[in-house]
C-alpha cells in the first residue's frame, strides 16, 4: 500500500540553522499519524513544506504515488490538504461563517454571482452544519471571531479545515488552548474524520492525547525522523525518550 502523502529527504536551512535535515514522513488514507518532537525539532517547518508554504532546499514530496511540487497553499488545497495552524489564522473581525468560507466564498448563481455577490444563506447553513458535526461551541454565527474564547476559535478553525479537507487534514497543536470538554470533542472529531478515510496528521505536545488518537507516531529530532511507533503498544516514556534522544532507537524500530 503506497502512502497517500509521503515526503523523502526534505531539507531546508534558514541561515545557519538546518530546520529540516533530510526528514522523511508518510501518512496513509484513513489513519491518524502523530508527529511529535521537542521545540525546534522541525515539526512546524515540515508542516509548512507539506502545505505549500515553504520552499525546500532539497527533497521530494509525493501524493498518491505521484511526485508533486507544493509551492503555493493553493496547490496543496487543490489536492485536498488542509492545515489548522497553531496560531489559527482566523480573521478576528469576521464572523465564524465568513471565516469558514474565507477565500472560498460561495457565489450567488446567475449574473449576480458573476458581479461578485455571495450566497450568504447557503454559506451560513453549511457552516452551521459543519460546526454541529464537530460539536464545536460557537456562541453566535454573527459575532466577530475575535470576541470569542480560545476554545471557540479553535473549534472554528478546526471546523473550517474539516469542511475542506478531502484527503489530508493536518492539525498543529489543536488541543493546546482547550478545556477538557473541547479537547474531548476535538479528539472525537479527529477519529471521525479518520473513519471517513481521510489521512490525519496530529501534532501535539500532549503525549496522552497523541497516544489516544494516533495509529502511528513519528518522532522528529533535529530536523530528522528518528523513529516511528505504532500507537497501540507505546508508552509516554518511550515517546519522551525518543524525542529527547535518551533511548536512541533505530529508524523504523516499530
Amino acid at each position, binding site marked *: 500500500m503506497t502512502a497517500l502523502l509521503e515526503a523523502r529527504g526534505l531539507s531546508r536551512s534558514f541561515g545557519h540553522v538546518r530546520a529540516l535535515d533530510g526528514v522523511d514522513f508518510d501518512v496513509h488514507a484513513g489513519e491518524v499519524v502523530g508527529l511529535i518532537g521537542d521545540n525546534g525539532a522541525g515539526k512546524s517547518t515540515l508542516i509548512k513544506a507539506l502545505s505549500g*508554504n515553504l520552499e525546500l532546499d532539497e527533497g521530494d514530496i509525493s501524493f498518491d504515488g505521484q511526485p508533486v511540487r507544493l509551492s503555493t*497553499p*493553493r496547490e496543496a*488545497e487543490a489536492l485536498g490538504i488542509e492545515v489548522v*495552524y497553531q496560531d*489559527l*489564522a*482566523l*480573521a*478576528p*473581525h*469576521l464572523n465564524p461563517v*465568513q471565516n469558514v468560507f*474565507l*477565500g*472560498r*466564498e460561495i*457565489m450567488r448563481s446567475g449574473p449576480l454571482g458573476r*458581479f*461578485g*455577490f*455571495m450566497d450568504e444563506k447557503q454559506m451560513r447553513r453549511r457552516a*452551521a452544519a459543519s*460546526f*454541529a458535526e*464537530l*460539536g*464545536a*461551541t*460557537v*456562541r*453566535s*454565527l*454573527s*459575532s*466577530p471571531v*475575535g*470576541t470569542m474564547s480560545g476554545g471557540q476559535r479553535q473549534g472554528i478553525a478546526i471546523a473550517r479545515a474539516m469542511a475542506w479537507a478531502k484527503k489530508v487534514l493536518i492539525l498543529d497543536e489543536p488541543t493546546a488552548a482547550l478545556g477538557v*470538554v*473541547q479537547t*474531548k*470533542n476535538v479528539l*472525537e472529531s479527529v477519529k471521525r474524520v479518520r473513519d471517513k478515510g481521510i489521512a490525519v496528521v496530529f501534532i501535539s505536545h500532549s503525549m496522552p492525547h497523541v497516544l489516544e488518537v494516533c495509529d502511528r507516531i513519528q518522532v522528529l529530532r533535529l530536523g530528522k525522523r528518528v523513529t516511528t511507533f505504532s500507537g497501540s503498544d507505546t508508552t509516554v516514556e518511550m515517546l519522551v525518550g525518543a524525542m529527547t534522544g535518551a533511548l536512541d532507537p533505530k529508524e523504523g524500530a516499530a
Partner: protein
Amino acid sequence: MSTLANQPAVVSGGADESGSGQSFLRRVLGLQAFWILGVFVVICVFFSVLAGDRFLSAGNFSLISQNVAVWAVIGVGMTFVIITAGIDLSVGSVLVFSSVVSAKLMESMGGDGPGVAAVGMVGAIVSGMAWGGVNGLLVAKAKVPPLIVTLGTLSVALGLAQVLTGGIDIRSVPAELTDFSAYTKILGVPGLPFVALIIIVLGGILLHKTRFGRHTYAVGSNEEAARRTGIKVTRHLVLVYALAGTLAGVGAILSLAQFGTTTIAGQSLTNLNVIAAVVIGGTSIFGGEGTIFGTVVGLFIPAVLQSGFVIIGVQPYWQGVAVGSVLIAAVYVDQSRRAAALRGARPRRFMQRRETQRKERQ
C-alpha cells in the same frame, strides 16, 4: 462521552437561532456608526432649535450636501483603504493632479461641448487610477509603509501638478460641467450630490455584499490569515489603492464642475478631513472594520457644524475645534467599548454568557 461531545453543539444552535432578531439589534447597537448618527442628530436638533428654519431647510441641506459631495466620493475609497489597515494621504494631491490633467486636456481641445467634457472626465479618472495604482504597487509589492508611500505621492503629485501649470489655476472648464453642478437636478437632488450618492451606494454594495469587500475586511483583519486561505493579498491591495485613486479622479471632475477651476492650492487638508470623517464614522484605523454609512455620517458632522455656526453667528473657525474634539472622543469611546467587549464586561454580553453556562449545566 458522547453526551459530552454533543452538548455544546446544542447550545450553539439554540442560542443562535432564537437570538437572531436580538442579535441584529445588538449588531446595530455595536456599530459606532449608529452612535455617531445619534451625535449627528443631536447636532441637527441643537441648530434647529437655535436657528429654526434658517438651518432646517431643504435649501440649507442642499447646500451642505453640495459641499460634502467631493469629500464623500473620496471618502468611499478611503474607507476601503483604511479597512485594509492602510492609509492614503495622497488623495487631495491626486485630485489636484487629475483636475489639472483633465483641464489641460479640455483646454487643448478648446471651448465647450459634451465631447470635450467627456474627454476631460476620462482623463481625470485615468490619471487618478494611475496614481492609485502606483500607491498600491509601492505598498503591496515594494512593502513600503502606506503612510510613507502616500506622503511621498502627495508631494510628487502636487509638485507635478504645479510644474504642469506653473502654479496657476486653469479656468477653462466647459459649461456642460459647471452647469451640471449649478443647475442640474436629478429627482430633486442637485447634480454633484446625486453623483456622490450613486458612488456611495455602489461603494456600500461593493464593500458589504461582494467577495471583493469581504476580502478587503479579511486583509485588514489578519493579512497572514488572508494569504493562507489563498486570497491574493498583493493584488487585492493594489486594487484597493487603485480604487481610492480612481475615486479621487472622480472627485477631481466634481471639483472642476463645482468651482469651474482647478484647485491647486485648495486641497491641502482634503486628505486629513476625509480621514477624520472615515474614522469618526467608526472605521478602525487598525483595519478590519468599518462601514460606508459611517463614513457618510462622519462627513456630514463637520459640514453641518460649519453651516450651523455660520447661521447662528458663531465664528466658523469653531468648526475645526469641534471636529477635532469629536474625532478624539469618537475614537476614545470606540476603543474603550472594544476593550470592554474583549474583557467581557459589557452588561448584555455578561448576561448572555451566564445564560449559556446555565444551558451547559443542564
